[in-house]
């Protein structure tokens, strides 16, 4: 019974933290650009506002358009049950491992791209084709980067990987981990639509990717999609934080360790949010044709990570 409560609590925590994390990144960016910036909790109000608005839909849109937001949100939510956010190993570790996580994330991306194509607008089609280009290189890189860690731990189970690193802290600074971290960081920026790949703060720009796909959405559907995107950011950040720096995670379930785990999770997410905000302030958006090159770089890093963890075992 406690297991189910733990899992549900973890998913709820991710759901609640996601808007705050995005708001925090926006706020730090604003401060770095010498603006006052909206308060970090603004995204909660954004969600409330969107859920209260009526849905406007194109006459040409099919059932797919209506279903996609639910699937996108549900797949992101399902992942939060499988990723070690506050405790490891998780009771649901047997339900799905790293491959399930990667493909659940891809499922959401796939339906979002379909929904972008569905109403037949020019922007939606452009966004969908770009998103697929990025996803086609980014997804194998995520899998490969985490495989680099899995080789060291001897299991593709995320909980197992975390406990293996906790048991043997030396591997955290091994080259395999370092290269995998670099690869996963680049992919995180690409998959969550952050700056060198996609600009999260514009709504009308010819080179946008994520925003182009969801341009037709409004009301509660838009709220679901936005929330899912923020959730995805939280998931990627906690993968980066907890797979590579697992200290602070609760390995035994007592109220004290869980409280520490929640606090360290928030600190880790805040640190990563700061790093991403600084990166986004410093770099300019890449030309679209250079994006595959950047992702190629991260793929090579992930490949080297796997090689070195395989050969230096």
């Amino acid at each position, binding site marked *: 019974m406690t297991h189910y409560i733990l899992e549900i609590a973890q998913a709820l925590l991710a759901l609640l933290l996601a808007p705050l994390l995005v708001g925090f990144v926006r706020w730090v960016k604003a401060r770095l650009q010498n603006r006052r910036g909206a308060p970090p909790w603004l995204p909660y109000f954004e969600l409330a506002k969107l859920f209260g608005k009526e849905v406007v839909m194109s006459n040409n849109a099919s059932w797919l358009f209506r279903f996609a937001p639910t699937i996108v949100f549900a797949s992101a939510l399902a992942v939060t049950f499988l990723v070690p956010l506050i405790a490891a190993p998780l009771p649901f570790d047997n339900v799905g491992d790293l491959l399930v996580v990667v493909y659940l994330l891809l499922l959401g991306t796939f339906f979002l791209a379909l929904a972008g194509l569905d109403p037949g607008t020019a922007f939606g089609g452009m966004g969908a084709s770009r998103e697929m280009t990025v996803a086609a290189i980014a997804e194998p890189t995520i899998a490969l980067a985490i495989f680099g860690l899995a080789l060291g731990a001897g299991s593709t189970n995320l909980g197992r990987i975390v406990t293996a690193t906790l048991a043997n802290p*030396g591997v955290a*600074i*091994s*080259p395999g981990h*370092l*290269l995998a971290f*670099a690869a996963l960081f680049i992919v995180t920026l690409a998959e969550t639509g952050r700056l060198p790949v996609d600009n999260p703060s514009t709504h009308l720009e010819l080179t946008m990717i994520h925003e182009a796909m969801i341009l037709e959405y409004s009301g509660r559907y838009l709220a679901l999609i936005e929330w899912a995107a923020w959730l995805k950011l939280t998931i990627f950040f906690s993968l980066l934080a907890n797979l590579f720096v697992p200290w602070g995670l609760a390995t035994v379930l007592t109220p004290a360790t869980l409280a520490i785990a929640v606090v360290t999770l928030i600190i880790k997410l805040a640190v990563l949010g700061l790093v991403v905000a600084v990166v986004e302030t410093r770099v300019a958006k890449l030309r679209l044709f*250079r994006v*595959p*090159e*950047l992702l*190629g*770089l991260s*793929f*090579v*890093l992930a*490949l*080297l990570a796997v*090689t*070195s963890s395989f*050969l*230096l075992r």
Partner: protein
Amino acid sequence: MNDSLFSQLSTLGSSVVLLFGITLLWRRSLRAYTGAFQWQSAVLAAMFVIIGYFGHDPELYFVAVFFGILKVFILPRYLERMEKRFGGQRESQPYVNVATSLILAGLLVLLAYAITRPLVLVSALPTRGGLPLAMGLIFVGLFVVITRKKALTQIVGFLVMENGIALLAVLGTFGIPLIVELGVFLDVLMGFLVMQVFVYHIHGTFESIDVDQLNELKH
């Protein structure tokens, strides 16, 4: 414990050095090339200090200082001065495009792993984990030299290759005698100055530092 920490640190340092070598392939502007080379050299100098500390060889501290002065300050400054003179050089169309060269670099590092495998197996050095990475860096440097068109980026490629050799030497021997190191540094500096003269001549003759232009001399 000390030994395992040493081996972790040396492998980590080698992979950071290799990382800068690979990011070189992704960049275009000459300034980015120089920056990556500068950072790589700084990490390499730190590696000298680490190996000197754990290998109980104080001479390596001197080597690190000389190395740092030469490759973190003098050479990048010369490169920047040359770049300023020629104005905003970019490696816009290398012989092998960026995506392919990244994948080839990955394969080259795999090749380095394959050929150093016998060496790593018989070696009992704590630093043996870094040997394939140093070998990989030599290959990547050579790859930059043969696939990039601008004379200046080729020079950076050569310097990266030289960094790879220095890394391999220090990992494999824990520091060759100081006098030999100094000779090598002098050689690098002389080689660099000679190449600089060449670049100025190429620029003077063809109004460009694209070495492709040299083919015209055949006709």
